[in-house]
């Protein structure tokens, strides 16, 4: 799965996610990627989110809109994504199951995962490009 979140000079937030799904999935299987609030979410003034991982778990937990609820309730975006990753890990008891990228309406970035590999990057008018492949990089 691949994804992107962005904020433009007018403050509009957008998100996109795209995937081939799981290897050896049954034909017709769909995970979280195309579901609003699960694999993707964007709301001006709040946050843009893109998710990756085991789609069945992310879909059931509606991970992306959970991040938005937390940001809306005043949590900073870094904490919001960490909390959602922690909740999914605890609820389903599965490491290596989710990665989240998020951007709030001030352009602050949130990155969180329970995976060993988390392929990611960012660029802004002030910084970057920065890229990393392993979660601990």
């Amino acid at each position, binding site marked *: 799965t*691949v*994804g*992107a979140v*962005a*904020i*433009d*000079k*007018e403050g*509009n*937030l*957008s*998100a*996109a*996610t*795209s*995937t*081939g*799904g*799981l*290897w*050896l*999935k*049954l*034909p*017709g*299987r*769909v*995970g979280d*990627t*195309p*579901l*609003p609030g699960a694999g*993707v979410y*964007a*709301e*001006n003034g709040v946050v*843009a989110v*893109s998710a990756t991982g085991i789609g069945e778990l992310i879909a059931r937990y509606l991970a992306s809109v959970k991040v938005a609820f937390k940001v809306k309730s005043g949590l900073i975006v870094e904490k919001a994504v960490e909390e959602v990753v922690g909740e999914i890990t605890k609820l389903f008891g599965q490491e*290596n199951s*989710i990665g989240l*990228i998020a*951007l709030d*309406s*001030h352009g602050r*970035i949130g990155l969180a995962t329970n995976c*060993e*590999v988390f*392929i*990611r*990057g*960012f*660029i*802004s*008018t002030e910084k*970057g*490009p920065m*890229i990393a*492949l*392993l*979660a601990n990089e």
Partner: protein
Amino acid sequence: MSKEVLVIHGGAGRYRQSLQEERKEIEKTLRGALEDGFKALKSGSSLDAVEEAVKAMEASGILNAGKGAALNLLGEQERDASVMFGKNLSFGAVASVKYTWNAVTLARRVMEKTDHVFLVGSGADKLAEILGLDPAGKPSNRLQERYVELIKMVGEKDYELWRKNFEVAKHFFSD
């Protein structure tokens, strides 16, 4: 006036040795996606930026999307994608797309050219064909080799992503 920021991901999961062999190509893909996306961000909207960045990663063939999409049980590529614009919560998504590798652009077309938010399967493929999106080629040798390797693991009941599929999956194969 907001600062312009673009963040991307190329997937997450368990560490595999092949990551080291593919590292350079993945890093090149990420840099290219950031470059294409930021160029679009400077000249257009955040929606253009996320579409261009994801399209670049779909085109690479090295990540699990677009040309590099994982193969399903029958060795086919079925792609899912979505886009969302925060200004008015506009949304477009596609699923089980075979016709084109560029699923994210098709998702944006659903958002902008139809009254729907989600098209799947043959309907999504028909729209891709009508709108002239780039047809998907055959999966790469790298993907086909991985498929054979995994089918063998399934045969040895050594496939961690399956908890129940073993029973139903065998009915998908005549022998």
